[in-house]
């Protein structure tokens, strides 16, 4: 059985698509056969972040409607052997996703030997976001250290706990918190919520803290999932998050200004 992981948040623009691209690439880099599905119907973007926008022929809704086979619609990633992308449809009909249709596609991916299915959720708490989280075994709730994002994350946690399939069956969805766009300098100045504060409010296991980093925009410009940038702090933080997702114990990094710069540390040691 494939493990279904939703990347969700409620609020838009917090880093769900960036995270979906990074986590799915990270899992595939470690040899796990992974599919990543764009649930943002009408606003397809995962293809751009994964650099496969010009190879899209069929999409998620085509497969659900039987207009294409899953095999025809899946795009094989050029960088990772074990990674496949299922792009969102650009149709404006949001109801194109049905529970039965989504379930059929997920089951077929599972039967085809996929180990992980990453569902990149649209923003909001409407139909598309609900479809993305409904079948999840695990949820990665992406939150920025900012009031509206944290509040929306809590709402999404409530929906996971009451409306998901697992909730309906009396089971629980495994929940993780991923804090992104973290700026340790601003936290130290007292004008950004610290990761401890966010975690305390949401009371959810911390999967990782991704620093706010210029490298993310540079990577997206080129269609390179940030996890491939081994030099960048954000890329390394995503590597750590993938390791934790697989059950490894890894210390959190990039939580303070000091740990950011190697030269600063070197200087301090020699001083």
């Amino acid at each position, binding site marked *: 059985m494939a493990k279904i992981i939703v990347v969700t948040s409620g609020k838009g623009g917090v880093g769900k698509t960036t995270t979906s691209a990074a986590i799915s690439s990270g899992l595939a880099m470690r040899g796990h056969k992974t599919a990543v599905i764009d649930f943002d119907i009408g606003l397809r973007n995962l293809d751009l972040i994964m650099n496969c926008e010009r190879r899209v022929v069929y999409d998620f809704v085509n497969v659900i409607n039987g207009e294409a086979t899953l095999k025809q619609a899946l795009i094989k990633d050029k960088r990772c052997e074990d990674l496949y992308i299922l792009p969102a449809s650009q149709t404006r009909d949001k109801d194109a996703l049905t529970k039965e249709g989504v379930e059929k596609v997920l089951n077929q991916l599972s039967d085809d030997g996929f180990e992980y299915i990453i569902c990149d959720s649209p923003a909001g708490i409407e139909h598309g976001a609900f479809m993305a989280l409904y079948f999840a075994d695990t949820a990665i709730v992406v939150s920025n250290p900012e*009031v509206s994002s944290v509040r929306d994350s*809590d*709402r999404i946690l*409530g929906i996971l706990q009451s409306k998901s399939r697992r909730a309906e069956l009396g089971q629980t969805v495994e929940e993780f918190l991923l804090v992104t766009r973290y700026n340790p300098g601003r936290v130290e100045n007292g004008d*950004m919520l*610290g990761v401890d504060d966010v975690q305390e*409010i*949401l009371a959810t296991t911390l999967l990782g803290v991704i620093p706010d980093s210029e490298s993310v925009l540079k990577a997206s410009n080129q269609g390179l999932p940030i996890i491939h940038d081994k030099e960048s702090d954000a890329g390394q933080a995503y590597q750590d998050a993938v390791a934790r997702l697989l059950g490894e114990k890894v210390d959190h990094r990039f939580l303070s200004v000091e740990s950011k710069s190697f030269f600063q540390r070197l200087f301090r040691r020699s001083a």
Partner: protein
Amino acid sequence: MSIFDYFKSSKKNTASIAKERLQVIVAHERSKRNQPDYLPALQQEILEVIRKYVSIDQDQIDVQLENNGDCSILELNVTLPD
């Protein structure tokens, strides 16, 4: 305390203000979760009945249904003005 200290400390506080506000609103919204759909209407009608006798604001009344194993308790909190 100099004026500079004042700006420094007030700047320091915005993250803790954010935390406090979030704790309050999140606790409030959690308590409203999984409540029956009729509760807001019930609260509105109770409010109107009370208003026949005392004038109170919308936020001075709070209705909650608490599950206590084999029974539920309907809790009604009304803050009356002095």
